[in-house]
């Protein structure tokens, strides 16, 4: 096959994701309601892609497009179901009869402070975020979390001052704000989790010996001579040094 042809074929096969979709490429359709207004969209798309197909060009509610940034929090309801569900628009396929709205921002307050001058003390959470004492243990936050995090559990761990548990449970939080929006006690869970993780990383974990040692060596200019020697090699010499190191490669 001609090489340029290969690139053309690849380009063609990707057209539906690199540009807006063309009607003729669409086989299955569903109907969705964006803030109450009806749109017919391709069934294979995510909520985000479907809204784009319908004509939205996002400014808000769209960041990474891959489930990592928390910009595309969505609240929706499906046909004949009274429950409100939550999801990330970039990570959820459209369903027929979906009623949806984007929640691009939660006006949640973050406490400002200085981790460096803080004590590793169980009361830190209550000091920064006294409202966590109001938690009703209703579990609404956990149900709202698109990352399936046991949000209530980490708030409870924060109340106990258990840094390690807060860090471990909250780790996958993408700070989408859906828990906070739904919480009857107006707790800002994701900021509490952030505080717990930083405190645990700063004070709870041991300093890592290798990196402590190596960064000191760097500051002490231990590698100057070796760098200078290596950097003075001709490309061919450097190439063979490279090959030698690749031979002693640690794979798994």
């Amino acid at each position, binding site marked *: 096959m001609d*090489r*340029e042809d*290969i*690139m053309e074929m*690849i*380009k063609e*096969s990707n057209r539906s*994701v*690199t*540009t*807006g*979709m*063309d*009607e003729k490429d669409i*086989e299955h359709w569903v109907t969705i309601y964006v803030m109450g207004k009806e749109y017919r969209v391709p069934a294979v798309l995510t909520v985000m892609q479907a809204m*784009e*197909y319908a004509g*939205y*060009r996002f*400014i808000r509610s769209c*960041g*990474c*497009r*891959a489930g990592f*940034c928390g*910009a595309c929090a969505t609240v929706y309801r499906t046909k004949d179901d009274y429950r409100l569900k939550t999801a990330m628009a970039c*990570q959820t396929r459209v369903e027929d009869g979906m009623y949806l709205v984007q929640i691009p921002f939660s006006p949640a307050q973050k406490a*400002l402070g200085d*981790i460096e001058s803080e004590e590793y003390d169980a009361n830190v959470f209550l000091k920064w975020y006294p409202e966590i004492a109001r938690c009703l243990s209703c579990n609404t936050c956990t149900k709202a979390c698109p*990352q399936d995090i046991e949000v209530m559990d980490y708030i409870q761990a924060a109340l106990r001052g258990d840094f390690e548990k807060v860090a471990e449970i909250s*780790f*996958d939080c993408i*700070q989408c704000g859906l828990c906070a929006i739904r919480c009857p006690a107006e707790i800002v869970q994701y900021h509490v989790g952030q505080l717990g*993780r*930083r405190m*645990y*990383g*700063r004070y709870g*974990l041991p*300093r*890592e*010996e*290798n*990196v402590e040692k*190596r*960064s000191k*060596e*760097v500051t002490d200019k231990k*590698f100057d001579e070796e*760098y200078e020697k290596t*950097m003075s090699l001709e*490309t061919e010499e*450097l*190439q063979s040094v*490279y090959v030698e*190191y690749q031979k*002693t*490669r*640690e794979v*798994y």
Partner: protein
Amino acid sequence: MSELTFIDGYPEYMYESIKKVEKTRDRRIGKLVPQMSQKQREEILGRYHPDYTEGGKRRIKHGRNEGDLAPNELVDLLEALPLVKEDDVDLDKTDYETDVLIIGGGLAGTSAALLAVESGIRPERILLVNKLRHGDSNSTMAQGGTQAADRPNDSPVIHYIDAMGGGHFTNKPDVVRALTEDAPVVVKWLCDLGVLFDRNDDGSFVELSGGGTSRKRMHACRDYTGMEELRVLKDEFKNRRINVLEFHPVIELLTDGGTVTGALLWGLETHEYRIVKAKATIIATGGFGRLHIRGFPTTNHYGATGDGIALAYRVGARLLDTDTVQYHPTGAAYPQQIIGLLLTEKLRTSGAQPVNGDGDEFVFPLEPRDVEASAIIRECYGNGKGITTPSGMRGIWLDTPLIDIINGEGTTRKSFPGMVRMFERFGIDMVKNPVLVFPTLHYQNGGVETDPYGNTNVNGLFVAGEVSGGVHGKNRLMGNSTLDCLVFGRRAGVAAAEYVKTSAVDGKLTLDHLRAYVEMLKSAGVETKRRAPVLLPDYRGRAVLARMIDVL
């Protein structure tokens, strides 16, 4: 195509191929295809890599880099007209006066802000502007890890050698030295700020290898490395009360004729312009994946449209290594909703193997990225051994079930919660079944040339992160880019602070350079209606676009 029957989230015909992959699995454990020789690598790159094959690039016709090759989409950006004309705006009314203006809040920009503060610039004299939210960036999406040579059998110099080799010895040596030598310092800095890198039971880091690294030096935070690093830096940024302005992309730099003196912003929602006066300006706008070079899908975030390169080129900055682009070997090829999204290299580091439609291995799993990507394209298009998806894409399998088999049950869920979750959302269990992959547009290797401190050839202008060029040469290794952003973001923050204190001039704010730029385009024979920066891609359906009219 009519209705398909699905098994475990895959159409039946794809599932049949998965059965073949299962059959060969035992035989493949512990047995890898040998690495290619330098000669084999060159040959396969020349034939199957989108960078090396004909038709994707042309020469830049104007400015500092006249004569250099670059992807068509990048040259389009450089050859575009500005979004505003000089008389559209009143430059006499300044909205913000700052010491340091930072454009872009990924790892590079946020690190720069923190180090500028540490170097004595008052937080209220710094302004970080961002196109989208602070944090909506490529940085947030980094999964695999950050390199730093800190283990006893490793050294920054070996890291240097690996990075040079990975970049085919085209990297700028002095910046690579800064990259590799600062790495342990940066990782320690992050730990002290509270970043939770994966640890072993004895408290030491879990460190893995990556494509092209000769030692294990990848520091990861599950598969949310960039997210963890950036959210901690962002938290510290807020705690320090540094100014930030979101949803206000820079659409042009301002100069006094030579020195950069500030920038022109545009409110994405309200459409009004604002003027920033700055003693020093740092561009940290990240990459250009959303330009969809050669029509490839991309791993990049929504705002990755290469704005920084266009802005910098207009004020006369020199670019480097614009001719190479990084395609990540393993982007998702199925299901359609996630096409192009990244499947981190760490999956292969942990034992997942690329396997063709017949269930046969065909490439060493950890070749440098360009080589690995070419091998996958060859398998699909040269050898015809790929699988074609219902949307018409071809791909090969990444045999992910091997990860648990090799490292013990539960490893995949524990180490790759983000990936497992993504596939689960679309009905696929990657612990049990392999996933279909094809190369995807990932990283802008080249960019604005800098010295080891983020200085450019333009006075008052600093650059850091993915928008820069030189440090990775023609090919970047995994884990060196988050590192690049951290190292040079910090360095640029320090250098900009130093510049503010010692040599900044109180220059005028003008757009004079635009007139010269447009003239230059004309005399180079470029005729165009294109405009840049692009700011955002457009994925609206064609049917809607065809009927759109402007009445309000």
